């Protein structure tokens, strides 16, 4: 069938001028549309629809910007507004026939134009920031950093060239003191007042769109709504007590819809009244409301966007070892919700190790922990790395325990691991401890989870059933394979030769283990083996009853 024949099959549609076989006008519900059929030659193409010569229709998905054709060579003169009927990359066009693509497109348009007010509201809210930012005033982009998005908060205002950072006063950003050529990159504007107000019920809160600008009334409705309580009692009481120092005030609102978590900033221009509370200013002093281009940037928000555990953010991790494995683990920890790491390692990065260090090419000859600090903090200003360019000793470990939620050892030194294990066992450390190490040869690795209140510790792996000390029983590699996996440097030193595959696998397994711990699914101390074909609980005897550290033979 031709595009025209398919469109003619709809009772609701009246065909208009046909410009060529695949491009024509039609009328639907008294609105005129330009229809461009999908290309028959390009299977990945889809149909497109533009609203023609209608500047007022304010349906969601009918874009705000219009293209004005004045020299009508291909298309007739007039304004064209694209109708967004598909989420980006949401459909596999290649598996649809030409006819199916057209039917699907028209069905969606009809559905769009038949939406109830509730459906329209939901669609507008889904794309709230698009509409908000499209209506924004000025050249500045407002970056929002929130600590918690359910409480009213006073915000600090920092200006860069064309970026304004509004940060919750409780948040410390690691780059805020940064200088460029001796000049501070971020200037703290203490004379600007800014506040965050969470919206708990977003019914009826629509972004500005065609023919609908925000005014004082919109703010009145949010803060002092007639029928729907949009903000909590706590928020309301708080904004009664806040007294802005400035005439104009920056406000940031946050709200969660069914599908999105939105923050949007505005400049509230006010009459010059001294001593008014924020509530009074909102209710009586507003002269104009200016939407600001807004992007939320805080770590919690970004973390939520990829499904991270938000609770991890406040946990402090002690990471011992910043070698190849430690560098991968550190990088993934900060991407997976952990923002505070203290890292111990006294080593510097050598040329030979650069290809299996998480940040290849950076920091050769420099302290590994210091390089990690720079690189990890660069990822996000809320990430805070405490780098200790020294070997961890038992005294330092004992001191660190007071302020640590998780300990991860990424060192492959049995003596050190056994020594720290003893300290932790003596202290009966109650937080999770993870020993993570690779075997020489790079085929196998292990993760040992220990809660020192339960049976099983690192020394169990070095103990046989009669309580005698033996070498690590978790080891899976043969001596021959180990020997083949070593590179000698000519002066008695050796280097284990392995690529990054084992590092990635081990790091992934560690992240899974941390999730299991967080969900209380690891109910006992567990040794996990990572082999080329599987990740799973080890089959060696663990815990060892005869262990001299945690078992029957303990002193």
């Amino acid at each position, binding site marked *: 069938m031709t595009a025209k024949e398919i469109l003619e099959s709809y009772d609701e549609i009246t065909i208009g001028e046909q410009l060529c076989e695949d491009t024509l006008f039609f009328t639907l519900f008294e609105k005129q549309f330009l229809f461009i059929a999908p290309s028959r030659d390009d299977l990945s193409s889809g149909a497109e629809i533009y609203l023609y010569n209608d500047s007022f229709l304010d349906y969601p998905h009918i874009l705000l910007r219009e293209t004005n054709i004045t020299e009508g060579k291909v298309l007739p003169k007039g304004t064209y507004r694209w109708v967004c009927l598909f989420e980006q990359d949401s459909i596999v066009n290649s598996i649809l026939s030409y006819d199916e693509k057209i039917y699907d497109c028209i069905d969606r348009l009809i559905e769009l134009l038949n939406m109830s007010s*509730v459906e329209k509201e939901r669609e507008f809210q889904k794309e709230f920031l698009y509409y908000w930012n499209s209506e924004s005033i000025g050249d500045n982009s407002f970056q929002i950093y929130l600590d918690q998005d359910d409480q009213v908060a006073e915000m600090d205002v920092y200006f860069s060239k064309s970026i304004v950072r509004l940060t919750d006063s409780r948040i410390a950003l690691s780059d805020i003191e940064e200088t460029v050529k001796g000049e501070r990159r971020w200037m703290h504007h203490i004379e600007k007042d800014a506040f965050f107000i969470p919206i708990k019920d977003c019914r009826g809160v629509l972004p500005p769109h065609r023919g609908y600008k925000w005014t004082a009334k919109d703010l009145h409705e949010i803060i*002092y709504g*007639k029928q729907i*309580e949009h903000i909590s009692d706590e928020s309301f009481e708080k904004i009664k007590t806040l007294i802005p120092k400035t005439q104009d005030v920056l406000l940031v609102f946050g709200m969660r819809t069914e599908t999105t978590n939105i923050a949007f900033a505005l400049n509230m221009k006010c009459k010059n009244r001294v001593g008014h509370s924020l509530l009074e200013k909102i209710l009586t002093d507003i002269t104009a409301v200016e939407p600001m281009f807004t992007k939320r940037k805080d770590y919690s928000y970004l973390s939520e966007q990829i499904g991270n555990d938000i609770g991890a953010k406040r946990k402090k991790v002690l990471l011992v070892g910043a070698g190849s494995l430690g560098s991968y683990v550190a990088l993934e920890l900060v991407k997976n919700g952990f923002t505070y790491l203290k890292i111990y390692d006294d080593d510097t990065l050598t040329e030979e190790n650069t290809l299996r260090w998480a940040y290849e090419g950076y920091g050769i000859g420099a302290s590994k922990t210091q390089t990690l600090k720079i690189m990890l903090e660069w990822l996000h200003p809320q990430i805070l790395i405490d780098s200790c360019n020294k070997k961890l000793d038992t005294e330092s470990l004992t001191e660190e325990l007071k302020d640590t939620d998780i300990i991860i050892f990424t060192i492959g030194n049995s003596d050190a691991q056994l020594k720290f294990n003893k300290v932790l066992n003596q202290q009966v450390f109650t937080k999770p401890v993870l020993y993570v190490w690779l075997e020489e040869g790079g085929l196998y690795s292990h993760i040992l989870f220990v809660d020192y209140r339960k049976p099983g510790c690192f020394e169990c792996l070095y103990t046989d059933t009669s309580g005698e000390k033996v070498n690590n029983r978790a080891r899976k590699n043969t001596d021959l394979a180990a020997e083949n996996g070593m590179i000698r440097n000519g002066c008695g030193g050796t280097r284990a030769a392995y690529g990054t595959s084992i590092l990635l696998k081990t790091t992934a397994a560690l992240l899974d283990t941390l999730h299991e711990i967080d969900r209380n699914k690891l109910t006992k101390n567990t040794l996990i083996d990572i082999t080329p074909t599987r990740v799973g609980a080890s089959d060696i005897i663990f815990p060892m009853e005869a262990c001299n550290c945690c078992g029957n033979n303990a002193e």
Partner: protein
Amino acid sequence: MKLKKQFADFYKEIRIDDETHALRDKREVLQADIKAKLPGILEDHDITINKSDIRLIDQGSYKYHTTIKADVVDRDVAVMIPLSTSDNTDTRKIKGYLRDAIDIPARTVVIKEPCVRASYYEDGKEWLHIDLPLYAEDGDSVFLARGKEHSSDYSWESADPEGLNDYLCEKINGNNQLRRIICFIKKWRNEKYSGSTSDHEIPPSIGLTLLACDCFSEQSSSEGDDDLLSLQKTMKGILDKFSYTFDGNGDLIRTISRSLPVTPYTDVFKKMKDSSSSYMTTFYNRLSKAVDNLTDAVNVESEHDAGEYVQKVLGESFIVPPKEAVAAQAQNKREHSFG
């Protein structure tokens, strides 16, 4: 279970959890005015009461948390004063004193038959009214002041507002499905009577609430509460409570009665019946149509079709799910990969 999410979304859409700050401020100022001014005005008419004697009692849907969104916010607060009804037989005067106590330019105050109403306007449009039924505590008895300002029909009617509160709170609190069903029935009423001009034409909220409590059918399965089935059975139960008689012309007249569960045990539909016999028939017919639609929704297999039937009852705020075939087809076409 059909339409579980749609009913949950619909309830979220129509419900009003609590008073807004704007409403609370208006109510508190109004209550403060009553306490501050009413004793003085009564004193001028040789009636002595202390400020502390005035009791203000929360009533209506805000009390039971069965409020739904509406064009005008409707709040009920009972005003109870110690008063000898035998010495003060003219309720119109007493209601007039209450009116005078609260009559300021910020509100429009009128005396209605069962209460004094304070209305609030913005841009010429009413957005809130607070109804203040006035009660006299006379010895061990409580009486409601009835009668319009200039009506010859006025009286003190025996009443028990707190007993009614207790009765409904006991029925509704802790029964979330019943609370939702009451809201749905009120929403149905608002939809079907949106064009009505006469108050008495519309089934009163108290009547619908009491009937919903009487006929409530709790429905759930392993998937959770089945609000569609519960609503259908509850509304069918209400429909079955209608009786019929014939009028002088031999035409069938449908009618329903529900007495208040407390003093004065009067029929809550009395005004509706007294105004016009056709109001009851209309109520029956509209309810009957709703039950038919809900029964169809329960019986059809397709969730989309069921949604369309429910939408006919509850209005366009109830979102109909897409056709199953369309949804399945859309699922088949969806891009499931990402890189």
